[in-house]
């Protein structure tokens, strides 16, 4: 709870900083403050508590995921230092929006009441609409924001309808009541319909097939840093929320719901990966890659013993790899019109370190060992195989193979071609974020217990 308050307060302080003309130290200050909040958050570990009539429930699930979100926000804020060089007067707005976004994300994993859940998801979404459309004069950014907004609102409507039906069935928004209702035998039909609507709304947020269409367009059009936010923070948040809701409502779910999950998971992977093969724009490619990762993450919900630890690990691995990749993309495409793969040519020669970071990030996403992505996939396979879904594992394996195809397109461009552009400057924040992301990726890749043991 303190964490949530502190985050919101930090957002307000950021806005005040602009008034106080302290723009120059805004980013370092926010980073330090976020680190402080991270510490604050860690104090709640192993201290389950609920606040305000169970509006907010702080447990290990929420603490660990919130910690991950804070770390990711720290990265995103740090990357923002250089990203808004052309509109310095708006820096504080963007930083503040990111921090509000974080508060929404934190609310989404620590809600104890569907009202908080709805607020959280809307805070997150509205922040993202703004960020996506934030390049006012750029038609692509506008289009991206508009598409996201229209479709996001549509999904919000569905979520709201779902909440409404659940409320109608049990007369409460409280998660404890919902969990009880889920296991009880006689409950109104609406309850299930509401659950399904809720799930579909969240499937939209994590961009699972067939609700994924917005993702590539929005990712491509949005400013790169926003794309980074969407593909790391927003995606993991939505997935964690989905997990939490699913866990709460999975009391006596019919077998068919598993089938649906298996099919959606397999479809998301396959569609995402195959579509990514022929993309020239890196952001768009990563959007499709994100769709396939959504499919992988859906696998955590499959099986007899679903494991939050696995999801946390997968999300962490995926997000760190994404941060690493986007820090390089931000660097490479700073002064360029688009993020096409050709722009990455020769990076291995001009900036070997960044090329290395991008390579490791991509290898991690592809699931190649010593990087975190490998263990993430391993645990998923292990869990799904135990529950007997060999076919899904095979699909996942085939997809991992396809994925290598497009990840390597980027690596090839970096190492086998000559640079087309002069690349100057060694922006500190980008290098720092890239380094830290790489180290974190390697650390949890070599010692996965560090993360998985947080949630047992």
């Amino acid at each position, binding site marked *: 709870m303190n964490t949530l308050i502190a985050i919101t307060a930090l957002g307000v302080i950021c806005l005040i900083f602009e008034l106080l003309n302290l723009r120059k130290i805004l980013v370092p200050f926010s980073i330090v403050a976020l680190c402080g909040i991270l510490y604050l958050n860690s104090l709640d570990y192993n201290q389950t508590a609920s606040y305000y009539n169970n509006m907010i429930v702080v447990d290990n699930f929420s603490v660990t995921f919130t910690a991950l979100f804070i770390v990711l926000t720290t990265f995103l804020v740090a990357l923002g230092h250089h990203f808004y060089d052309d509109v310095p007067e708006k820096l504080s707005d963007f930083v503040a929006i990111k921090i509000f976004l974080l508060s929404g994300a934190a609310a989404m994993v620590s809600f104890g009441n569907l009202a908080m859940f709805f607020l959280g998801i809307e805070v997150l979404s509205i922040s993202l609409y703004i960020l996506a459309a934030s390049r006012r004069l750029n038609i692509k950014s506008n289009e991206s924001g508009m598409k996201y907004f229209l479709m996001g609102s549509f999904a919000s409507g569905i979520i709201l309808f779902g909440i409404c039906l659940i409320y109608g069935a049990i007369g409460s928004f409280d998660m404890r009541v919902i969990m009880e209702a889920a296991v009880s035998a006689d409950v109104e039909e609406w309850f299930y319909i509401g659950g*399904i609507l809720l799930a579909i709304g969240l499937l939209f947020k994590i961009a699972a097939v067939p609700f994924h269409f917005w993702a590539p367009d929005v990712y491509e059009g949005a400013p790169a840093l926003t794309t980074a936010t969407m593909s790391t923070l927003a995606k993991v948040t939505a997935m964690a929320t989905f997990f939490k809701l699913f866990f709460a409502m999975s009391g006596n779910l019919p077998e068919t719901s598993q089938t649906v999950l298996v099919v959606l998971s397999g479809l998301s992977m396959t569609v995402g990966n*195959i579509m990514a093969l022929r993309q020239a724009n890196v952001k768009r490619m990563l959007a499709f890659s994100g769709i396939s990762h959504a499919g992988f993450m859906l696998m955590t919900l499959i099986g007899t013993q679903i494991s939050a630890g696995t999801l946390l690990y997968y999300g962490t691995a995926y997000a760190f790899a994404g941060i690493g990749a986007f820090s390089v993309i931000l660097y490479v495409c700073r002064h360029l019109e688009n993020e096409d793969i050709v722009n990455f040519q020769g990076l291995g020669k001009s900036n070997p370190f960044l090329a290395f970071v991008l390579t490791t990030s991509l290898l991690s996403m592809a699931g190649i060992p010593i990087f975190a992505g490998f263990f993430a996939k391993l645990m998923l396979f292990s869990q799904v195989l135990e529950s007997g879904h060999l076919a899904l594992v095979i699909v996942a394996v085939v997809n991992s193979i396809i994925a290598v195809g497009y990840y390597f397109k980027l690596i090839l461009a970096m190492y086998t071609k000559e640079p087309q552009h002069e690349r100057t400057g060694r922006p500190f924040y980008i290098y720092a974020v890239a380094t830290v992301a790489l180290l974190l990726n390697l650390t949890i890749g070599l010692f996965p217990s560090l993360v998985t043991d947080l949630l047992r």
Partner: protein
Amino acid sequence: MDLSIILLLLLAPLGGFLINTFLGKQLGKGASGAIGTLAIVISFVCTLLLFLGLEPGADTKADLFHWLTFQNFSVDFSFQFDQLSLLWLLFVTGIGSLIHLYSISYMHHDKDFYKFFSYLNLFVFFMIVLVSGSNLPILFIGWEGVGLCSYLLIGFWYSNQAYNDAAKKAFIMNRVGDLGLLIGIFILATVAGTLDYQGLETFFQTKGSLVDSTWLAVAALCLFIGACGKSAQLPLYTWLPDAMAGPTPVSALIHAATMVTAGIFMVTRLHFLFDLVPAIQNVIAVVGVSTALFAATIGLAQNDIKKVLAYSTVSQLGLMFLALGVGAYEVAVFHVITHAFFKACLFLGAGSVIHANSDEQDMRKMGGLRKVMPITFITMLISSLAIAGIFPLSGFWSKDEILLEAFHYSIPFWAVASLASILTAFYMFRLMFLTFFGEFRGTEHAKSHLHESPALMTIPLVILATLAAVGGLISIPGSSWLMHFLEPLLHTDGAPEHHALDQTAYILMAVASVGALVGIFIAYRKYISNKEVPGEDSEVTGFTKVLAEKYYVDELYDSVFVKPINLLARFFRDVVETALGSLVYGFGKAAAEISNQGRKVHNGSIGLYLFVFVIGFCLIVSYLFLAQ
């Protein structure tokens, strides 16, 4: 057995090889040749020492160290110097020494002189390993080793790709045989659990009858295939005539006297196995006698002096296999030895002739050389008489014994073998008459260079001619030293009738002698009286043409084996590889194509996106409710 002598015997040629390989260039030709020759002479002396110190019943084995380990048997690096090995070693190192000596002069102008000696030394080394190994894998080391040296020496003049082709052909054909040999070895190892000669002999004597005779027959047949390869028998003989591409001393040493007899050696070594499978013995006899006749007929129409000798070698080897097939191992060995003498002499003599003729090998361009090269002429004449089987030269005794044994075994075999002998007499004297009699038919330039060869070359000729003349003494019917010498190994005392000098034997001897004389007479009529000279290749017609073209066997092999394999290789390379490759790419291409189609679906229209959203929504909801 004195280990130091054995090691010296083995290692002297190896040392010679190493010194010549690494230091040959620095040493200069004189020292290089001397070291090469000396190495073999040392081995010869060692062999003599061992030979003289041989006591019946003594242990002849020398274990060096452990080599291969398998579950049910193991192979040691060990050698055995019993009667058979020593006999072979004697003529290998003996003739080897002479040929080395000869080569010093013969190869004097070659720029790779030292290489030649290093290869020759290596050859002798492997030959020693081959004959003195005490088990089949060691024999196989020598077997392949001599094959390698043969390859190196046939292709000694590597600038000429035709020679290289011949070398390659020799090696590959030998390997076909080697595969057979290996399979035979494997079966023996599985059946008997040992590959040691003594162990095998014990096994076959005690448990031979318990073993499934099919396996024994297969093993024996496979081993015989190996022998066919090395000893140039049908159908694997075609490499030997081509092997004449090598320098003449090589032909003398490797392709006449020693290496090609390895097959006979091996069969003799494993006589206890072959004795158990009469069917295979029959096969051996048939192959031997057919080869003898087949090669002899080809020999009739050859004009290259070395090719004639080569086919003669194939034919003689066929006779030896006939002897093996009829179970007369000691007779085969006897013929091996006499053949080594006279054939080495013939080859060296041919070398001498070629040397004098400015490297011309075509007999149509020779003639009348007896006046210029008397020593060469006389030594070759003696050897030719010996090979033709004229009393009392060595060839008479050995060939006669083979015919005798064949007669006792089966009269058709005898008849064919006799025919081959008559043909031999004919083509050998065709060679002699064309080369040494009449007028010189070469160019004026060549004529001015004609000369008798230097002493280093004639001395070996004389020694070999002497041996060819008197070598038969080691096994004169009635009192055969050779038979007694080999008796501990071959246990020939069980078959005394082999050497009974009865009336039949005398008649056969007379028939054979008359036959030989007839052959010589025909040659005389044709080439001396009528002064015929074989025509140009293009003029030859009819059956002679078939003979001159060696029955088109090479062409047959080419179209049955070589071309199809190469065709298959092309097919694999161009079709199968491409197909497999594109199959793998196909997956990638298909995925990319689906991706391209999918991109059309993602057309940027919010309406479509939401439509799919709603469709998906409806599908999920309806599935969840309908499926219940």
